[in-house]
């Protein structure tokens, strides 16, 4: 009887996460020392990471493939989980949301993302996406006593559901054309039946573009993100600015590069204007923001614009570039959010950029860390941000998108201003008010980890580049 069951080896990491998350959600009432949950999350993240590297294979009737491609993305997700678990405890305790469900929801979301990264079937892709999205909707609305948290959650939920509907419709068209939901079978069917000029295929590609553009916040489908970022607890913002975004790109890689490989010209044509619009809109709108969470929301829109360049390139190199970009982005963005988290006091939001005025005088170390993260986000060497940008620009250039790359570098020059403005406030203006910093060992460890990543991969990125490339070798011809 047991032999008829499918092998579960490939989903060990996901199983582990779901089990631990469920137990944490259940026992929360009886655990008074909430630090247990932080530690459980950290340990689980590391264990799952080890399992990700150890377990590979295809299972459940070719719907789930724990392949190299998935390994890289899962590394990103678990890294995000690890960093967020380090930055969250102090902040959550302050706001009274440091309970088991918080960590449980994070882990459910990560499970959903991991399913998205390894899916071989559109239905499973949808399931993973919903698991991730629903968990994150709840996380955004965790501060339900605050109006803006509710507003953010509501907007995110409504628009997110809308996007899910688009996704289903796109899948339905594709199913109608090919009669299957398996990604590789779709690719084969499209080629075999020579459907690349079919109108329905174009429509399906367009709907996929819209759905994923919602998820990774490409302009003009970005409207939810500044509100959701601002309203969500900062620990959640840090998570959703990298995690779900990376998952979106993982799914994009599977859908566009593999399933819709035959319609490459069509979806490229749709993504190019979106990418240009995204880079410039994000960069320009970030200039006028005074709330640092909103500012980083627009900055993360711009960064999604760069990351999508790798998908547009449509090559192995391009996919590797996008993957590396997201990996490095996790370090710098969560690092920056860790500093924002430090600023929060009981009755002081610490979100206005003018709260950072003179920080270098009052807290030189924290200011220096934020300086490094911000210059990395700007893309100035010798930080990781530069390496990421260089790789995606190079891949897009190699694929022949010259004009796009020129526009991208110009956008990155505009995007520098908001970051420089914060540096300017921290270093070049006198402090106006007393700012207290709530440092605890967890967040200190997280900051050190992030800054090490940013500087180390900035000067010695060789191993991760090789890793990203190796992970794409089996994925694309």
């Amino acid at each position, binding site marked *: 009887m047991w032999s008829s069951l499918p092998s579960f080896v490939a989903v060990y990491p996901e199983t582990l996460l779901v089990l631990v998350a469920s137990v944490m959600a259940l026992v929360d009432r009886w655990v008074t020392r909430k630090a247990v949950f932080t530690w459980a999350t950290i340990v689980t993240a590391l264990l799952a990471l080890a399992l990700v590297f150890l377990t590979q294979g295809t299972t459940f009737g070719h719907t789930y493939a724990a392949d190299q491609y998935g390994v890289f993305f899962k590394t990103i997700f678990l890294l995000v989980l690890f960093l967020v678990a380090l930055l969250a405890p102090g902040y959550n305790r302050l706001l009274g949301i440091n309970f088991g469900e918080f960590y449980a929801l994070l882990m459910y979301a990560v499970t959903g993302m991991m399913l998205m990264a390894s899916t071989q079937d559109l239905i499973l892709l949808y399931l993973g996406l919903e698991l991730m999205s629903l968990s994150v909707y709840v996380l955004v609305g965790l501060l339900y006593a605050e109006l803006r948290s509710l507003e953010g959650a509501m907007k995110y939920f409504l628009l997110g559901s809308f996007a899910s509907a688009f996704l289903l419709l796109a899948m339905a068209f594709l199913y109608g054309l090919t009669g299957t939901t398996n990604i590789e079978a779709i690719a084969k069917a499209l080629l075999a039946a020579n459907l690349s000029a079919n109108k329905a295929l174009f429509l399906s590609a367009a709907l996929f573009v819209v759905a994923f553009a919602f998820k990774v916040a490409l302009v003009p489908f970005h409207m939810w993100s500044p509100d959701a970022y601002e309203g969500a607890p900062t620990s959640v913002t840090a998570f959703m600015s990298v995690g779900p975004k990376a998952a979106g790109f993982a799914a994009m890689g599977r859908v566009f590069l593999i399933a819709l490989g035959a319609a490459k010209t069509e979806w490229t044509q749709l993504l190019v204007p979106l990418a240009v619009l995204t880079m410039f809109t994000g960069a320009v709108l970030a200039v006028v923001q005074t709330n640092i969470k909103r500012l980083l929301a627009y900055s993360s829109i711009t960064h999604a614009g760069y990351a999508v360049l790798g998908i547009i390139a449509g090559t192995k190199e391009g996919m590797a570039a996008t993957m590396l970009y997201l990996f490095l982005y996790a370090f710098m963005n969560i690092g920056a959010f860790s500093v924002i988290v430090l600023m929060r006091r009981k009755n002081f939001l610490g979100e206005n950029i003018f709260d950072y005025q003179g920080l270098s005088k009052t807290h030189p170390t924290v200011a220096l860390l934020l300086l490094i993260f911000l210059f990395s986000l700007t893309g*100035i060497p010798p930080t990781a941000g530069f390496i990421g940008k260089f790789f995606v620009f*190079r891949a897009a250039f190699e694929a*022949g998108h010259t*004009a796009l790359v020129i526009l991208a570098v110009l956008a990155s020059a505009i995007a520098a201003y908001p970051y420089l403005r914060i540096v300017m406030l921290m270093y070049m203006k006198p402090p106006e008010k007393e700012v207290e910093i709530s440092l605890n060992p967890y967040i200190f460890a997280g900051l050190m980890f992030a800054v090490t990543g940013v500087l180390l991969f900035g000067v010695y990125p060789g191993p991760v*580049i090789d890793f990203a490339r190796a992970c794409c070798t089996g994925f694309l011809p």
Partner: protein
Amino acid sequence: MEVALRTAEFPLLSAIIWLPVIGAIILLLLPRRDRLIRWFSLVVALVDFALTLPLFSWFDKDFSGMQFVEKHAWIKAWHISYFLGVDGISVLFVLLSALVTVLCILISWEAVTEKVKEFHIALLLTSAAMMGVFCSLDLFLFYLFWEAMLIPMYLIIGIWGGPNRLYATIKFFLYTLVGSVLMLVGIIFLYLKAGTFNILEIMQLGLPYQFQFWLFWAFFAAFAVKVPMWPVHTWLPDAHTEAPTAGSVILAGILIKMGAYGFLRFSLSFFPVAAKAMMVPMLLLSVIAIIYGGIICLAQTDLKRLIAYSSVSHMGFVTLGIFSLEGNAVEGAILQMINHGIVTGALFMCVGVVYERTHTRAIKDYGGLATVMPIYAAFFMVFTLASIGLPGTNGFIGEFLILLGTFASKRWAAVLGALGVIIGATYMLRLYQQVFYQEVNPKVAGLPDVKMREVLALVPMLILVLLIGCYPTPFLGFMHTSVRALLEHVHQAAGTTLPISEILKEGLHVVLPS
């Protein structure tokens, strides 16, 4: 033509570049005791300068290739190597950078009183990045240093600068960044074509003219902003004026030389055909910079601003020399870069000396300083004359060689350029007259003369001004072989040029499908 390499037995260049970085890291850990930090930085800078001296004496002047070469694989995935070396074009800049760093620490001894630790860290990091730029033989490594320098420089101008520093520093950063990212696109293109970042291999690439044309302008964007050439010079007066004295000295002494160095190292050797074809527009831009910069100087009322605009004019001479593509002129241009670094650096230091005492930069607040501060007046006089290009000072040698070479290749440019010398004499002598002669302005009456520390910073500059002015042979000897080899490379490069309209049409064609 293959470029010969001579590998170093001792990683001298690495030591020179990384010593200030290590110093900066140690500074980060030191307690905030200003005296300790100043002395420590000074020692680091002095040791670094001492390390550059073997470069001076061991350098083989008859060898046209790269010397003191170090090469190690770095990022294998992209074929990037840690590849350092100097030739006759770059070696003097390394020396100058080390010297300027020492002087900058001396000159800010009392001027910088706030965030002393951060200041010295930024200064040492800038110094390391500058030397890295001049030593890199790998395009990626070069770009890394080139961009990395923006961060400490942004902080130096923005934190320790004058009243309008925030505007100036953002403007500086964004101008430079826009230029640099366009060069980055060019670098990516070259890499994809050549499959390597190795500068010496890219030199042999021999790209078709239409590629060279576009790449020339992509690199031009970065270098022209840094030099700065007219019409992208507008960041310079602001940055110079608002920067602290040490910042101005670095800007004038080294940073803007990086642009001209870039033209020599990259634009000429990578895109020789385009450089030859673009000679007239480049000379025209240079002449405009010389004359326009000079005329603007006549209308300045601010000491630092005047010297800043004079930089535009002087750097016009440098680009004039480079793009006349004639041996004497190019040697003159390199020498003039060194000269300008010394003279303008020294002039900024001099302004810093009185600014520390009076806290005003308006020319009308001065007058009669020659009676109040006679020793200072003597220093200033020598640097003024050197800036004008009086025979016997270093300025004369550089300008003369440039005009000599330019005359041989494009007569009109030399004639117009010579006009700049006359304008230069007008504004500098007027400045000297207004500040040092006439009646003693009550605002400056009773100022103390220069201190020992300030004299120590100014004397090396003075010696160099007179030494290069009277006996330039050793300095010219450094660059002679390398310059001849470079020009041979440029003039031998064969390639048919196309009319611009055709290139634009083709360019549009390439760009539009994406």
